[in-house]
């Protein structure tokens, strides 16, 4: 009863303050909105400037064929980023998964065919272009590549006429749109960022409100005032934990509401598995909060440490982009591998059908678990000091 009353008071005291209301309840929604508005648009067009072109070379170009090779070199890195594939099947698979926008197939015998066209006015050469049906960027990429190659055609025609006075037959482009392959773990940015926004809102309460609240109440003698009553340090800590848990639930509920109604986040976020992982994340975030309060004696120190820890845990933890998949300096990768948030956000994403890293199930639970154990140990050694109990 005592704990419930104190929790209620702590909760009201927090939410009645503007920052206590804004950061846990309003800011996550704003961030969610901004992230989805900015980045989900960019993933569908991928910037709109650089297209990923898959090339399947069935022969090494030689003679007149090198003209095409030179053209391909000149269109890089913009507007095309070239990825070479060994087989057409592999390239088409990547196209279907939207990993590339376009496939250019250079068939066997192209060099000879081109020489025939130029020197003897033979049959026109065929180059196959594969685009993705119903994909604006894929169609656009195909048209851009065609127009570039047509310019090359014109140049070659001029050369043929000037050299032989003969007729030049243009390269025939065979555009073959193919259907996009639907996969169960199709990338949906709102679903990708949903666990990150949830964790961010949990962290803002566990990392800011918990340690800063404890230190502030200690410095201001609020907890001393409580200890004059039959309330002890454990009652006080439990009340603070309960009050923050209520705030976290409300904060998460708001993010859920926005995610499910506005951004059609994967319904798997309502599954028991996802919610269990979320509860585990709450426990881990609390543990990070108590580590900070165990080592920071002053409010100002804790504020600085919390800010730094918060940013590191978010960005290196891979909340908004998969850090470990980028070419980062190794120390950053080591830090990212140590952070509990790397595993928490990945674990949540996996339960939504998205996998960014190749962590084992064991790692996903163990490393955050080690954080909990170490934090509880550090906190128990500093319990009396932290709680202001002499």
């Amino acid at each position: 009863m005592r704990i419930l009353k104190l929790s209620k008071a702590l909760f009201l005291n927090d939410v009645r303050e503007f920052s206590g209301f804004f950061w846990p309840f309003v800011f996550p929604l704003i961030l969610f909105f901004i992230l989805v508005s900015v980045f989900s648009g960019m993933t569908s067009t991928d910037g709109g400037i650089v297209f990923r072109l898959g090339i399947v070379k069935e022969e090494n170009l030689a003679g007149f064929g090198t003209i095409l090779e030179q053209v391909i070199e000149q269109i890089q890195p913009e507007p095309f980023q070239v990825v070479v594939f060994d087989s057409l099947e592999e390239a088409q698979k990547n196209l279907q998964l939207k990993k590339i926008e376009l496939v250019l197939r250079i068939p066997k015998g192209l060099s000879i065919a081109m020489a025939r066209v130029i020197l003897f006015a033979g049959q026109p050469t065929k180059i196959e272009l594969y685009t993705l049906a119903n994909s604006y960027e894929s169609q656009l990429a195909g048209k851009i590549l065609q127009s570039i190659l047509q310019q090359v055609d014109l140049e070659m025609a001029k050369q043929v006429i000037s050299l032989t006075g003969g007729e030049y037959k243009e390269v025939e482009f065979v555009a073959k749109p193919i259907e996009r392959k639907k996969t169960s773990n199709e990338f949906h940015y709102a679903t990708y960022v949903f666990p990150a926004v949830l964790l961010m809102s949990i962290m803002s309460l566990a990392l800011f409100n918990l340690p800063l609240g404890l230190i502030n109440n200690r410095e201001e003698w609020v907890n001393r005032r409580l200890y004059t009553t039959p309330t002890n340090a454990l009652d006080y800590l439990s009340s603070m934990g309960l009050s923050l848990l209520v705030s976290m639930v409300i904060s998460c509920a708001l993010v859920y509401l926005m995610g499910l109604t506005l951004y059609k986040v994967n319904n798997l976020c309502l599954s028991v598995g996802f919610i269990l992982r979320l509860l585990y994340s709450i426990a881990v975030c609390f543990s990070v909060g108590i580590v900070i309060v165990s080592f920071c004696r002053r409010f100002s120190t804790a504020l600085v440490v919390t800010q730094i820890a918060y940013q590191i845990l978010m960005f290196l933890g891979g909340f908004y982009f998969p850090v470990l998949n980028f070419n980062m300096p190794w120390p950053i990768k080591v830090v990212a591998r140590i952070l509990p948030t790397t595993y928490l956000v990945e674990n949540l994403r996996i339960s939504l059908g998205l996998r960014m890293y190749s962590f084992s199930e064991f790692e996903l639970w163990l490393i955050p678990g080690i954080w909990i154990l170490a934090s509880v140990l550090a906190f128990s050694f500093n319990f009396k000091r932290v709680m202001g109990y002499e």
Partner: protein
Amino acid sequence: MNAITVRNLRKYYGATKAVDGVSFDVPQGEVVALLGPNGAGKTTTVEIIEGLREKDDGEIFYFEKKADHIDKTVKSQIGVQLQKTAFFEYLTVYETIELFAGLYNVKVQKSDIERLMNLVALQEKAKSRVRTLSGGQLQRLALAVSLVNDPKILFLDEPTTGLDPQARRHVWEIIEQLKQEGKTILLTTHYMEEAEKLADRVLIMDHGKIIASGTVQELIRSIDMESYIEFTTDKAQILQKEIPSLRVTDHEKLVLPVIDVEESIHMLLNKAKELAISIDNIVIRRPNLEDVFLNLTGRSLRD
């Protein structure tokens, strides 16, 4: 029956003896003031008794029952007003009193809370948030909160420090009312007027020790002085050399303890004339607790 008994209480912080063998009794229904300058060890003493600090040595008895550890049972019988008032800033006055009642597991009705607010004259501030209260109103809220469990013993630590004279008088009135209701009160203060006005018994504390105790009259009588002559002069040092019993107060006044007022006045004026020193603002007054402290320690309470 003694509500509180303290025997040989000690609390050391390294080489600093914050509380150094303190023993005293607080009889039930009395107001006892622990008087001393800042840093004398008053707050440490009461915080040990309240259970906020751990003692190094000594014994504490509540109603003749030894309390090795100040547990929930003891805490539910006492009310505490700390030196620094600290509450949740965004709760209202009403909610704060209600919260503390809940912390004592006391079921309170709206009328009980209103009665407490009336007692401390905060009924008009019932819906005001704590952060908007003035210093005096905060102290009164602290008093109301300390009474929420209807305690048998009340600890008031510097209840009027930092308040203006009007707010201080208001708090004194409330304490006098509580005294009339029969509450046992242990009051710590460095204001001798407060101790003189409110306390049945006074314990004078300095450097972690109780250096004198008794009723106000007993303590004053103990210094064997009838009166004090206070005055100002521009050449205090010269005069002090001639009259060694002269002391300087914190208001830069000179104080002369005397038994025979008439004879002493003559002596003082003759000396001033002889040394060509002017003397102004002469006041003859009865001795007070400040003089007792000065007599015992050679220092002022405000030093």
